[in-house]
């Protein structure tokens, strides 16, 4: 049963420290998403990649957040320096983009979510 994995599952750190979260997408999936979940905002898309190239990172604070895909089996989300307001659950999701059908119907590419990393910045 293929699943998205994320490490660490929990992280407690002090303000100013660097935090790196890792995600292993489902093998064969070509799209990776990073979301942040908070009580107030719900699930927010931070960034996503297709074939390891960033397609949209408009939801990510650029000054302290960075996301990369060093290879097809690893996606990373880094916060440097971390702040208390970054405390949240960070989810990674992966999916397989499929082409449109001959009739032009837009396919939906289901996103499969990881278990999340619960980050607490003190």
């Amino acid at each position, binding site marked *: 049963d293929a699943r998205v994995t994320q490490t660490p599952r929990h992280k407690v750190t002090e303000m100013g420290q660097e935090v790196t979260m890792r995600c292993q997408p489902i093998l064969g999936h070509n799209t990776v998403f990073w979301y942040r979940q908070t009580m107030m905002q*719900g699930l927010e898309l931070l960034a*996503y990649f*297709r074939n390891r190239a960033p397609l949209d990172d408009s939801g990510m604070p650029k000054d302290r957040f960075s996301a990369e895909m060093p290879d097809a089996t690893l996606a990373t989300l880094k916060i440097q320096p971390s702040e208390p307001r970054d405390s949240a659950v960070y989810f990674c999701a992966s999916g397989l*983009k499929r082409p449109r059908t001959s009739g032009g119907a837009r396919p939906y590419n*289901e*996103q*499969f979510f990881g278990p999340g990393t619960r980050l607490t910045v003190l």
Partner: protein
Amino acid sequence: AQRVTQPEKLLSVFKGAPVELKCNYSYSGSPELFWYVQYSRQRLQLLLRHISRESIKGFTADLNKGETSFHLKKPFAQEEDSAMYYCALSPYTDKLIFGTGTRLQVFP
């Protein structure tokens, strides 16, 4: 602006009662809408999507373009339905815009 609104943070019902989780969206084009569910200690997963017109675990959702709504309904709630429910909009093939979620509590 593309937006999904779930007005209720918490919805509590008794087992056997009907359930309706509200979702309204704002999008100028032809949306694709979904409901995702997160059970306790489990990961977020797709429940249903409007284009499939399917019923999953007794839940249905109808897209009402006139009211820009995609409410999730179930005629008789079960305790195992207790979970966090997210409505989501896909303006493109890839991105999902989520609402803030509604926690459903079903009491015995």
